[in-house]
């Protein structure tokens, strides 16, 4: 089972935090700090795996760096490290498809959407979808329904509006 998905930037600031077992806020912060500490001490060019004792003796941590962000998944021995590595790839690919050239800012400002994407891929700590196009399709369904006039009025065109473009 996957225990947590964490995205932090290279300064250790959390960008997306999702625990599949409930963790109190303080505990979450402690875990993030520890994970960040571990990742900082990792040399470059080494494996993407860390044995991790956050959630008991058998949990492992897989991380992958995308530009300024660390994507981290913590899981137990019912998952396969290499497969999880590809799962992260799927997640980022999906983000990229949804945001178009995704960058850290997209994740900061749209983290509810990012959560939605993540929920389509991992549910209750289990991987349920591995195809980014399927996730995008599900997301489109949701977006279309939300654009439907009976739902709320959208926030005005946000930044691009201010930009005058």
């Amino acid at each position: 089972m996957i225990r947590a998905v964490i995205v932090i930037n290279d300064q250790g600031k959390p960008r997306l935090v999702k625990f599949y077992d409930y963790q109190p806020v303080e505990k979450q912060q402690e875990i993030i700090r520890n994970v960040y500490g571990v990742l900082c001490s990792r040399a470059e060019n080494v494996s993407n795996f860390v044995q991790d004792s956050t959630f008991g003796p058998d949990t492992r941590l897989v991380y992958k760096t995308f530009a300024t962000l660390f994507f981290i998944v913590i899981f137990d021995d019912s998952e396969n490290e290499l497969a999880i590595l590809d799962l992260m790839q799927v997640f980022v690919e999906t983000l990229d498809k949804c945001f178009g050239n995704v960058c850290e800012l997209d994740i900061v400002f749209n983290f509810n959407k990012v959560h939605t994407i993540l929920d389509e891929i991992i549910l209750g700590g289990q991987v349920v979808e591995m195809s980014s196009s399927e996730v995008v399709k599900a997301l489109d369904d949701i977006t279309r329904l939300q654009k439907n006039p009976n739902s709320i009025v959208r926030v005005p065109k946000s930044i691009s509006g201010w930009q005058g473009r």
Partner: protein
Amino acid sequence: MLLLTLLLRSVGFYFFTSSIQNPESNNSYTAKLEQLKTIGRELAMGSQGGFGQSKEFLDLVKSIGEARSKSEEDRIVLHEIETLKRRINEPDIPKRKMKEYIIRLVYIEMLGHDASFGYIHAVKMTHDDSLLLKRTGYLAVTLFLNEDHDLIILIVNTIQKDLKSDNFLVVCAALNACCKLINEETIPAVIQQVVELLGHQKEAVRKKAVMALHSFHQRSPSSVNHLISNFRKKLSDNDPGVMGATLCPLYDLIAIDVNPYKDLVASFVNILKQVAERRLPKSYDYHQTPAPFIQIKLLKIMALLGSGDKKSSEQMYTVIGDIMRKSDTASNIGNAILFECVCCISSIQPSPKLLETAADAIAKFLKSDSHNLKYMGIDALGRLIRINPDIAEQHQLAVIDCLEDPDDTLKRKTFELLYKMTKSSNVEVIVDRMIDYMISINDSHYKTETASRCVELAEQFAPSNHWFIQTMNKVFQHAGDLVNPKVAHNLMRLIAEGFGEDDDAADSQLRSSAVESYLKIVDDPKLPSAFLQVICWVLGEYGTADGKYSASYISGKLCDVAEAHSSDDIIRAYAVTALMKVYCFEKSAGRKTSLLPECQLLLEELSASHSSDLQQRAYEFRAILDLDANAVENIMPLDASCEDIEIDKSLSFLDNYVHKSLEQGAEPYIPENERSGTLNISNIINRNPYEHPAHSLRFEAYEVPKLVVPTKLSPAVTYPTELVPVPEPSYQPTVSSGPVSDAGSGSGSTELRLRLDGVQKKWGKPAYSSAASSSTSNIDSQRTTVNGATQPDNVTSKSREPRQPHVEVSEEKQKLAASLFGGRTARPERKQSGSAAGHSKVSRTTNHGEDKAQPTTVTTAVQPPPPDLLDLGESSGAASSYSSTVDPFKQLEGLLDLSQDGHAVTTTTGPDLMSLYSGASTNGQNQNQNLNPLLNEKDNMNGAPNPSNRTASLTKGPSLKDALDKDALVRQMGVNPTSQNPNLFSDLLG
């Protein structure tokens, strides 16, 4: 973060000129303007999905991004909390405003601050009709609340309603929430609906319903047990996604108990076959691999089902063989499946053919350049050597490379492997390595584990007493505080009992070498307490036994210990008792005894010690001083630590005395539980005061003003204290304070006693550790049989040997390899005499092994150029074509001055970069052309030297030349080298 900060700064500069004035933005105004266009585009894209946020939120993120310290960040967030607290409770907030507040709350909590004041609003939002708001509400509550939170009860109703919705997206949202929020108590409220949804027409809903049911099963198996058949049914769902989801609960169920699912073996095999033969729709492929997660789950399930079951295993052989043959070893996911196959093969009933395939796969993993694959290879090797211990031999050099790898994860995994393959022939090398590693690490958790493994291996395989004692000394010296105290006791026991053979000479030799080595290190001031206790005990018991050291010498050392550790009462107690023993042994042996002056001083000091234990020991010692040799010998018999002390529990020696007293008219003894006349005070105290009838009178008298309270008492008190005051918070405090004051004068002491009660119970239990040394013997005999049973494979490994020579290895490594894998001598059965048959077999294998190891060493050592040189040449040749896995701009930051911001700016950096990188990746022989090459680069896969690896190595260290080269190249490409390029991901994801 820097990127973000800079971006936001520039945004801030442009839009909120008055708010921010920082020096950088003044310097490069034009560049910033250009930059802003990019940012604008970027952000516009970001808000495509209608998730756009307001300026306020932007400001918040911006100011947090700019915070220079944690305290500044905290201040900003606290201010934000204040604002939100005020705003969120205003009447008539527009819904979309509220939604944003909720999102800001989530953000605050992500940063580690308490947002509980707004939970209730998130709960309210789940009631909303609009899907967007509802989803936001659900998202927030799943992140905020745990399943036992009091607010859950308010959500259950909504979930029930939403599960019935005819909009499948609403149903999905509710099912998502179910997975996280429904606890044991609330399961009955929704379970019926969830089960009905298993038959929903939308596959997305069915899939989520399966997962919801699974999460219910995880929380409370008993409340879902009658519905487990549904999982079996869903295995034959038309939609492969739903079937795949069903595998998750089935895996858990099978892990608990295999037997009820044996009948499914054929189905699983069949499904796996269909998946592997690509009968699933194309949409389930991931990079040309059909449904990888389904395959992996199935292989895991089959590993469980086939374990120790020949019949089931045989059904699986064909399909596993097929998958391994077809697997795509060029891709990450292909290797993941391959690895899973190896795991499965090592778990099910062994098939020689598959074992061979598995060995080949492992060889491929270990030979790969990718650390990830090496890691998997080591892991797989560790699984396979359980079946075939000889397989490790082919890979000895690869294993040693991993042991010396800078990657800590890989190192640890390798130590795990070594631990599994330790035998008496290589125990010295392995344990020495482990101890060196143990000394080098700081992680206390892992240090502890390594230390206890060292101890275990040393106890099990120690080739000599001397080595054993030395090893234990090292472990204790470097990790003594982390070692389980039991280990220290085991050590004492081991020294006292010897290794269980009836060989007194060996035992006394062990003791002598222990005494000798302890005398050498006892002056080290940093020894951990547990180890000093062992030392004192051993010196007391055996210090003078072999006559090598005089009693006065030993006593002097013991006095020194007591003096040096004057703050540790336990060590002093051990030391005094040891002194007493030394004295007694001397006396009973009829030698002239006199106390050393420092010993005398110590005794005087301890007689006045604040510790009653030390005092007592000192007084006992003094009392013994006056006794004659005969009595002393009875009190402290020589080397009797292993004799059982017989305890006369019935106190029969008192019978005479009791008789006499009774005859003289004394009252007979009444056992405690029969003494009814006296009120048993301890009983009253131990019981819960709320329930006790003895208190009821007083209770009522004080309780008159609020009669309702007593009935509600017990449930109310069990509430957690951080309860959010929802409907009836007003009388909460009175309830909890009620009973305390009601208990009247005794209340204070009652509370105190209650706490003491628990402690006492703990102490009351006998806490003697059971004999742990006996457990190790099982493993010992097990290994012997495994080792002996695998003769045939020797032949294969022998034939493979000649392939290795083109790996050149330093002499040191060769030696290490030979000592680790080469001489496989039979394990001397130190502790157990059993399994003599297995023993003789093993010793035959041994000779083989040694013969074999020798030639390899010779051939490989001759080979010229060392591998490092080769590697270097290769990498420098290809270094000019690099791809940027690491943002090149970032590394330039230090070198670039701000004037460079003025250079011509090209905003269309994306495509240029991309074409370069895809070119680079083909140069680098990256074979996965069918995949997106850019995405691929990051998984530095097997074999082919990967360009991204090299770049990364280039970026290490502040090499000016490299940085300048890079700068030049970047300029050639027409890219503006600033650190503020927001198109970062285009480097990574085309």
